[in-house]
């Protein structure tokens, strides 16, 4: 992929997350200050390589799972994190506010739900606490009954899978078909591992559509895990 194609893909991922509608060549032409024809040619190359696709209902393009994966890997490699914003400050304040560990974890999950508008989840010992189901099923991506069923299957199997697979990375991102369960759900799972009084392998994270503001959401989930560990693990 050329540098310009990578930048165009990045713009498509970020614009699509922000406006939730397919991204057209005229908008990108303005952003990059080149002709629409140039953008269309680059988009055709990205589409041939499997990074973006054209939905039936629109002339614009949206990222594929492969496109999101490229974007997320690029974020991780460059260590390109947003400056600490008010969302991070609010999350840290609420995660560090003390109280019973279970209450603190639930409070942090509820805050993640409100800040990201995804479903939030955390392991508390053998239990899985979840919050924000209405956010998840209120997303247009999950309005088809088949997809609702796939997402429900993913949720049903999430707790046993977390205990069995026990992801070891500080932050793990499973995009769409990368999810080991509910592969067709069109969902992304972003989880952070942390140590708590309940387990050295505790997890907190969010589940939502593949259309995400990955940079912000990954940063918030990572901060949530880190702050909980600092607060709860002595």
């Amino acid at each position, binding site marked *: 992929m050329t540098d310009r194609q990578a930048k165009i893909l990045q713009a498509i991922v970020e614009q699509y997350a*922000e*406006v*939730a*509608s397919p991204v057209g060549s005229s908008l990108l032409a303005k952003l990059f200050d080149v002709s629409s024809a140039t953008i269309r040619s680059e988009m055709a190359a990205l589409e041939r390589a499997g990074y973006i696709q054209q939905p039936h209902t629109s002339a614009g393009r949206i990222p594929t799972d492969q496109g999101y994966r490229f974007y997320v890997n690029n974020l991780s490699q460059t260590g390109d994190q947003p400056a600490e*914003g*008010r*969302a991070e400050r*609010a999350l840290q304040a*609420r995660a560090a506010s003390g109280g019973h560990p279970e209450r603190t974890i639930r409070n942090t999950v*509820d*805050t993640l*739900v*409100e*800040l*990201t*508008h995804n479903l939030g989840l955390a392991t508390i010992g053998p239990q899985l606490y979840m919050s924000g189901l209405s956010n998840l099923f*209120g*997303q*247009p991506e999950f*309005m088809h009954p088949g997809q609702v069923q796939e997402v429900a299957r993913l949720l049903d199997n999430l707790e046993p899978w977390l205990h069995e697979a026990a992801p070891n990375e500080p932050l793990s991102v499973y995009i769409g078909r990368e999810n080991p369960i509910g592969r067709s759900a069109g969902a992304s799972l972003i989880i952070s591992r942390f140590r708590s009084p309940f387990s050295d392998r505790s997890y907190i994270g969010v589940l939502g559509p593949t259309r995400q*503001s990955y940079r*912000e959401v990954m940063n918030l989930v990572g901060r949530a895990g880190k702050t909980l560990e600092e607060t709860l693990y002595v």
Partner: protein
Amino acid sequence: MSEPGNGEQVASEATVYEHFSSVFYDIWGDDPDVMRQAQDINDEYNRALRENGVSSPYQLPVAVQQELNQRKVMINFTED
């Protein structure tokens, strides 16, 4: 504008809907800038409900839901 179906409530001028959760107010209640943006979005939701003759945000056209939902998310990520 679509007509409401049987048994559907219609949002009226007198009906006040709250489109943000109590957690939202716990987080941002003391931030006047966020509260001002939230009030604008709340008003827009209620206007959309009235204009579309429906009683729940989930009955709004998908494009309207997407736009307003996304604005709710972006409140959290936008700096002063």
